[in-house]
């Protein structure tokens, strides 16, 4: 059991560290220490969750949290965790288990980084953030 735990923790850390070191504005949802090992719930700012899932289609992941994976609503779990509403739709849940291999993690890292680049180049929010605009200050026109 402890071998599984070590294996899973190592791969989870690798995924998290590789992504956050190479790309800005990725946030971990929930406490870093007090969480079930193998669960990585990340918010990729300026990229909507479903478009991310489509971009990383070779990886089985879900948006929001497990309980809301079939729904389009942002997760009430993430909301309770204090995730900002601007980030509510940008979260992806990765699950790593005892059968996950390091090669798969390396593949995942590469795939995710490519997707982030592609989707941020498509994102008006990323563009505005790069221009130094505070997204919270904007009066959004909604229905």
């Amino acid at each position, binding site marked *: 059991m402890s071998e599984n735990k070590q294996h899973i923790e190592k791969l989870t850390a690798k995924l998290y560290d590789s992504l956050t070191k190479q790309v800005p504005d990725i946030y971990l949802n929930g406490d870093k220490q007090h969480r079930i090992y193998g669960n990585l719930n990340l918010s990729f700012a300026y990229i909507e969750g479903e*478009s991310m899932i*489509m971009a990383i289609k070779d990886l089985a992941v879900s948006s929001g949290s497990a309980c809301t994976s079939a729904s*389009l609503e942002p997760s009430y779990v993430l909301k309770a965790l204090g995730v900002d509403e601007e980030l509510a*739709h940008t979260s992806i849940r990765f699950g790593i288990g005892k059968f996950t291999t390091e090669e798969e993690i390396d593949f995942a890292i590469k795939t995710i980084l490519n997707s982030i680049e592609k989707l941020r180049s*498509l*994102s*008006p929010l990323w563009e505005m953030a790069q221009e130094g605009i505070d997204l919270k200050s904007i009066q959004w026109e909604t229905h």
Partner: protein
Amino acid sequence: MAYSEKLLDHYNNPQNVGSLDKKQKNVGTGLVGAPACGDVMKLQIEVNDEGTIDKACFKTFGCGSAIASSSLVTELIKGKTLEDAQKIKNTDIAKELSLPPVKIHCSVLAEDAIKAAITDYQNKQSENNE
């Protein structure tokens, strides 16, 4: 989510992604939606002296349907007069992409984006004439 081939094509090869200079007099910018809703579209048009849309480009924060809808819209409005572009309805977009019912709102937002871009362009023309 089962998406149509056309939708997937627009998602994988989005058309006219980018930005125009919003300070230019003949550029209209429409920014609709909200991050808290998970959908934001920025649509820009460059209008020539004849009142025809010469260039159109977009950037979208949203799901596959939102990206596809806005990409399609840039193709639909290019070469049209402002009057004709105003006539584009969300149902045209939804039909072309075979949007699932739960994603129809993406086409509604895309239609709003067209109107917002045109309104912005027209406001700029009347500002300059004052």
